[in-house]
């Protein structure tokens, strides 16, 4: 979502659509807060670090190259599948 949409500030998960049992909803919220959010924060922080290495003209060539590789590894080629944009928006 973040990279392909040009940087996003907020991402919300609507889980209620699946009418899950309460205990499963609570587990999902716990995993979102304790596992997903820290992974996302770490990934975005290293992406920012890589980007600043790339733009820092004083960085040594080998460090710039490291930053470049790190950044490249985070960019993913989009794979097109046939699906229409859902125009319905918020239900």
């Amino acid at each position, binding site marked *: *979502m*973040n*990279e*392909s*949409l*040009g*940087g*996003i*500030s*907020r*991402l*919300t*998960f*609507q*889980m*209620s*659509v*699946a*009418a*899950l*049992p*309460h205990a*499963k*909803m*609570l*587990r*999902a*919220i*716990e*995993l*979102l*807060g*304790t*596992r*997903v*959010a820290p*992974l*996302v*924060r770490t*990934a*975005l*922080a290293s*992406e*920012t670090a890589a*980007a600043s290495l790339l733009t820092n003209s004083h960085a040594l060539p080998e460090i710039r190259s490291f930053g470049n590789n790190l950044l490249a590894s*985070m960019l*993913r080629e*989009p*794979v*097109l*599948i046939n*699906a*229409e*944009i*859902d*125009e*319905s*928006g*918020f*239900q």
Partner: protein
Amino acid sequence: MNKNHQQMEIGVDSFVAATVDAAGRAVDPARHLSELLEAITLADEVGLDVFGIGEHHRREFLDSAPTVILAAAAARTRRIRLTSAVTVLSAADPVRVFQEFATLDLLSNGRAEIVAGRGSFIEAFPLFGLELEDYDSLFAEKLDLLLNIRENTHVHWSGKHRAPLTGQGVYPRPLQNPLPVWLGVGGTPGSFIRAGMLGLPLMVAIIGGEPHRFRPLIDRYREAGLRAGHSPDQLKVGIHSLGYVADSSTTAEDEFFPGYAQSFTEIGRERGWPPMTRAHFDAQLGPTGALLVGDPETVAEKSCA
């Protein structure tokens, strides 16, 4: 690139369903609301950034009065931001909306936000005596009034759909100045451009298909905003997506699918969509699909990609 937005807030948006669960069992509304408050409290405890409540005016939902639910949540939480998702502004009086969210802001010590949208259900129109043919002008006018009230305690305003304001004060004033107002949009290009021109943060609902196909619309939002003289920092983009996390991806997919398929098949019956199939669901689980369903690593990776 993400240089200006290294931080990504993560949260939950919830529509509060009534009547039956995925297994067809009746749900006690009072118990369901109490469980919802427990979920918001947990979201706060585990450090999530935001919790949103939808607004619907039909039999399948309990959330016609989201600020009441959010106020109850405000009293039980400390840090999490509390928002509508979305406030159906076309069918509401912006004075009342502002009063309610300003009160919520005081109750929550500055954690209230409004996501204003047109909604994608139409029940609110006949319920509040409004004409569906005014769909566009109602929203434009009410958004204008809401932003005017946010800017000015004493409001001078006149429009087509509401009695004019001739300097009356709108109280209470919120703790946050300005009270955050996002524009909630689906796939209508004009809505993206409107948000950009107004310099409002944009909340995009991407509930199917491939998210990257929204990129041109988001670019138009940013272009419209910059052209109107707003700073890049002001032009924030949020995404409302469908998702679910479990300990393993297989578990997450198998638990999420039945209720998801039922919801979409039911809504689809009204809107002329074909029934939701497992194959269509599976297609949206892939790297470029809209569903953020899986184990924590899968969901985090897809969120960043």
